[in-house]
């Protein structure tokens, strides 16, 4: 095998998930009626925003060797806080600030703070107290959702002021602003992970924390940062979700966790830690929401959609798994 041929195969295998995405989009366009239209693609983009933003943080925590099962509930909490404070109907308190333009930065800051706070609580229990990340964040998944129910009394807040809603309504180049936000996040965090010492340390700590500890790297700082970023981005996802919903409900975001994990795994991140790159995760998110959208359009019997979705996601993960075998076979 020539080195050039090998390099080509390497490249394709490294970006297999993008290839899958393209193939899937073509297949759906050809087989699902009305799938092939600009609006549908814009929808896929937009719908993948929330899980996309969440999946970035999740991927970073996972690469660092931990796990965060609470991102979904964290997003719900930050959405509920946003709705509670700024929505004008339902349980919304409809807080107004001096100037309308202040609404976006202030509400965003609050949402990010809420998310980061949950991330730091998780971090504290895992890093300082030494509990297993799985159980800590599973408990957070429960109690943070419980907190959402508690602060909302199970009710919903509606009608965010237009000054905030603009984020959910505007489009740029025909693509919703929401989608651009997730693209922006992916670009920033991809650079952070691939080109800076921080990103390098996340990978190394995820691979062998004992080695990095001995090498004088402050493991704890990296792990703290991972949880904080996961929480913060979950907070961002929640803020965006509240804007899109124009308020918040007690069960907002339920089920996103599965999608976030599926995207992360489809995108090639190893749940064992130490392995993964963010651009693949974005492809994973897009792939997932293409499937969701196609299922919506196909009009399958409703009782079977959940099974079919589970099966298709498994198939997508499977392809990623086969990558390893292919590499062994081909190279």
């Amino acid at each position, binding site marked *: 095998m020539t080195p050039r041929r090998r390099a080509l195969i390497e490249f394709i295998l490294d970006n297999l998930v993008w290839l899958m995405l393209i193939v899937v989009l073509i297949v759906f366009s050809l087989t699902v009626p009305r799938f092939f239209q600009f609006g549908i693609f814009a929808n896929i983009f937009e719908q993948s925003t929330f899980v996309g933003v969440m999946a970035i943080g999740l991927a970073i925590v996972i690469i660092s060797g931990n796990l965060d099962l609470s991102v979904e509930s964290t997003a719900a909490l930050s959405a509920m806080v946003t709705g509670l404070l700024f929505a004008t109907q339902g349980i919304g308190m409809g807080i107004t600030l001096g100037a309308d333009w202040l609404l976006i930065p202030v509400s965003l800051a609050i949402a990010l703070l809420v998310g980061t706070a949950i991330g730091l609580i998780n971090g504290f229990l895992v890093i300082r107290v030494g509990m297993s990340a799985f159980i800590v964040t599973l408990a957070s998944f429960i109690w943070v959702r419980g907190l959402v129910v508690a602060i909302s009394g199970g009710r919903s807040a509606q009608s965010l002021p237009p000054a905030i809603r603009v984020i959910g309504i505007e489009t740029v180049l025909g693509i919703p602003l929401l989608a651009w936000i997730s693209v922006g996040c992916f670009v920033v965090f991809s650079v952070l992970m691939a080109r800076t010492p921080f990103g390098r340390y996340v990978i190394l700590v995820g*691979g062998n924390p004992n080695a990095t500890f001995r*090498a004088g790297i402050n493991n704890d700082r990296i792990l703290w940062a991972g949880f904080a970023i996961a929480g913060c981005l979950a907070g961002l996802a929640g803020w965006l979700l509240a804007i899109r919903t124009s308020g918040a409900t007690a069960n907002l975001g339920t089920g996103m966790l599965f999608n976030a994990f599926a995207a992360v795994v489809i995108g090639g991140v190893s749940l064992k830690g130490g392995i993964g790159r963010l651009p693949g995760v974005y492809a994973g998110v897009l792939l997932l929401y293409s499937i969701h959208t196609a299922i919506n359009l196909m009009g399958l019997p409703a009782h079977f959609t959940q099974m079919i979705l589970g099966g298709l996601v498994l198939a997508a993960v499977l392809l990623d798994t086969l990558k390893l075998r292919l590499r062994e076979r081909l190279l």
Partner: protein
Amino acid sequence: MTDAQPLLKLDGIARNFGAIEALRGIDMHVDRGEVLALLGDNGAGKSTLVKIIAGGLRPSAGRMLFDGAPRDFATPAEAKAAGIETVYQDLSLCTNADVVANFFMGREITRRVLGIPILQERAMEAVVAQAMAEAGTTIPSLRTNVENLSGGQRQAIELNRFVHWGGKLVLLDEPFAALGVEQTRRGLAMIRQVAARGIGVIVITHIMAQAFAVADRIVVIRQGRVAGDVKSNQTTPEAVIEMITGGTLSGAGPDRDRDTHDPASETEEARQ
């Protein structure tokens, strides 16, 4: 030699793990520019001592003076900051990362772009390539993950990175265990060069030839205590081996009658 302030001075260092007393009071010192061979039987406590000096373990008792000041390192990072470089017996590499990332672990070459430190991969790769060539170790590609390397190749990465960071004291815990003949020869030469720069070196090995080839002084640890401390040109390998085993084991050949022994109590005895 203890008149001048030594680089490192250990004073009654002890460490126990639950019921097990791994170190029972170690007194020793290392001078600047001196190569000290730390010898001892398996389980004597050598690695435990190295970990204590390197900041990875806290002693249960005892004091440590380094570079003139009393020190109590809470983490390897602190020891490193003070100038102590360590090569551990159980390698500490991230097998999920490539050779370059492992070599530079924690000390990456970066350049600030818009205030953000950006990794300089090419510059780092060049440094690693040169270091490996000098050590006589061939590695197919510096971009392969360490998990794909042979035992000797791995050890070469760990052994050679310390030279680049200098420091004041270097701890080498069985650094040649997996190295080939030529690589070991170069490693020994490198230790002498490092010592010549005024750096203190503690090297652990089980091979007498290596100890005598490189060390100025030999310290033997037996069952957690210092059992000997001699200049290497004033002793012989046979005498050192006698110190290591304490003569207790040499009478216990595999052919002696052990049916009369209760194996459980025997290990108890041997520890006392």
